[in-house]
């Protein structure tokens, strides 16, 4: 697939996403505020009940900042995570078009996926800057250009991993009529095990050690900790290594599901 096609698809999708009406933006703000509110008061209650000034290595301010960063980075990592375009392509039969065109379906979808990230990018930028202005940054959080660059690299790879995961999951649509529930399942598991609901440092040490081998922590927890300057370059490289391996593994599984699925694909209405 040539660069020309790739950029054209990215920009078309970005324009489409940006043309959504006001409710989309109101909703983004609402969602962000509501999620943050819930986390904020939950932790206010816990810190109060506990009477401690650090839980799982976080001060209360640090915890609040963690949720801001995790919620925003999650937008970048997951993109339109409720999106079932691949599954829809399969059961509505529009996959047919890509089977006929001499271009790679995966790259086409990846270009669309990147284009659809533009609103998330804007939201992250706007809310992120606002948060930095308003919120107290505790002393143990060190956000500098190096940590930002390292974190963004992780986000890019995590985003690709999240994209690749769609293929084995949504590819099930070749056989099942509804993969919506699989998608929700993956989403829920990722939110807990990836550190969006809770920082993973709260998990028992054994669980943390085990999780480090799975792809989940690298979606939210590790990028946020990297952003906060708490991850050394060595750990960062190790994280990239684990993620790359998972990209390969998930990519291979996806390719296999896809190959077998294509054999049963009929393009709807034979």
């Amino acid at each position, binding site marked *: 697939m040539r660069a020309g096609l790739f950029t054209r698809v990215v920009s078309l999708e970005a324009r489409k996403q940006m043309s959504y009406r006001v409710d989309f933006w109101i*909703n983004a703000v609402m969602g962000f505020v509501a999620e943050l509110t819930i986390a904020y*008061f939950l932790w206010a209650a816990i810190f109060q009940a*506990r009477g401690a000034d650090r839980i*799982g290595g976080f001060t209360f301010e640090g915890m609040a900042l963690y949720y801001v960063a995790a919620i925003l980075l999650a937008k970048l990592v997951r993109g339109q995570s409720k999106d079932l375009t691949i599954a829809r392509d399969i059961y509505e039969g529009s996959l047919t078009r890509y089977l006929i065109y001499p271009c790679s379906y995966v790259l086409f979808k990846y270009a669309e996926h990147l284009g659809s990230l533009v609103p998330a990018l804007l939201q992250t930028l706007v809310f992120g800057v606002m948060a930095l202005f308003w919120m107290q940054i505790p002393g143990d959080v060190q956000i500098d250009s190096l940590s930002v660059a390292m974190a963004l690299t992780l986000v890019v790879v995590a985003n690709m991993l999240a994209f690749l995961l769609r293929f084995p999951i949504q590819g099930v649509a070749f056989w*099942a009529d509804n993969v919506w*529930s699989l998608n929700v399942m993956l989403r829920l598991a990722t939110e807990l095990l990836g550190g969006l609901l809770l920082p993973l440092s709260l998990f028992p040490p054994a669980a943390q050690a085990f999780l480090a081998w799975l792809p989940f922590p690298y979606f939210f927890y590790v990028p946020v900790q990297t952003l906060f300057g708490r991850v050394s370059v060595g750990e960062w490289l190790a994280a990239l290594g684990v993620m790359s391996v998972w990209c390969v593994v998930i990519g291979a599984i996806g390719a296999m599901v896809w190959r077998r699925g294509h054999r049963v694909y009929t393009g709807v209405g034979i």
Partner: protein
Amino acid sequence: MTRGVMRYIRLYGSFLRFSFSKAMEFRLDFYFRVVMDMVFYAVHLLFFTIIYDHTSMLGGWTLDQIYVFVCGAMLVDALHMTIFANNLWWLPIYINRGDLDYYLVRPVSSLFFLSVREFAANSFLNLIAASALVVWALGRHGGLDPVGILVYLLFLVAGTFIHYLVRITFIIPVFWLHSNRGLDEMAWTLHRLSERPHQIYPGPLRWILLSVLPLAFTVSYPAHVLFGGLTWQAVAHLLTVVAGLFLFVVWFWNLALKAYSSASS
């Protein structure tokens, strides 16, 4: 009166039969749903388990109490998924496609028909699983008064109804807006407020959740009553909220239908 009620019960019976045979057509989907809800339950239980590793109290509740609360939330979710969720999912689509006409000509309440027509038989196993979890949580807690437990369960049923009423309030504007994308997301986001004990929220927000946007009543308030003791005020409060919200939804629905019928030709 009783004959009218009987008619609706019989009608519901036929919905049930129909949806069971439909659900079985989609076998894989059925299994996926079962597994999905297991994951959902596990995530919620683990979430609070991990939090209680670092504190012994949250909003005045112990771990045992929070388990009763979380399992109650799962029961409400399962009830909602089985009875209402599918219908609410289709409703905006029907409204926008103009398919509502078929339902308006039928001699039954359109709100009733459209809200419960599609019983989600594929969530039925989850209803059983969620009930088992509630029993487990209550047993784990122990020492609860049977009457209190019965009241808790009744309150949860009312909570499911409130959950449904809140959700449909966010769907009805589709009659005018023709898109529910934003509203639906908003309803889900707000729903998440009810997944935590309402005691953790500060005064004004808690007041809202106990009155105009009565999300606290879905699970948190019932659990609060179970642990804090039943009072007449609590029952009165709940009944007022249910009745008020229900009347509001009926009024809102009829208003929307009027707009619908004057807009379509």
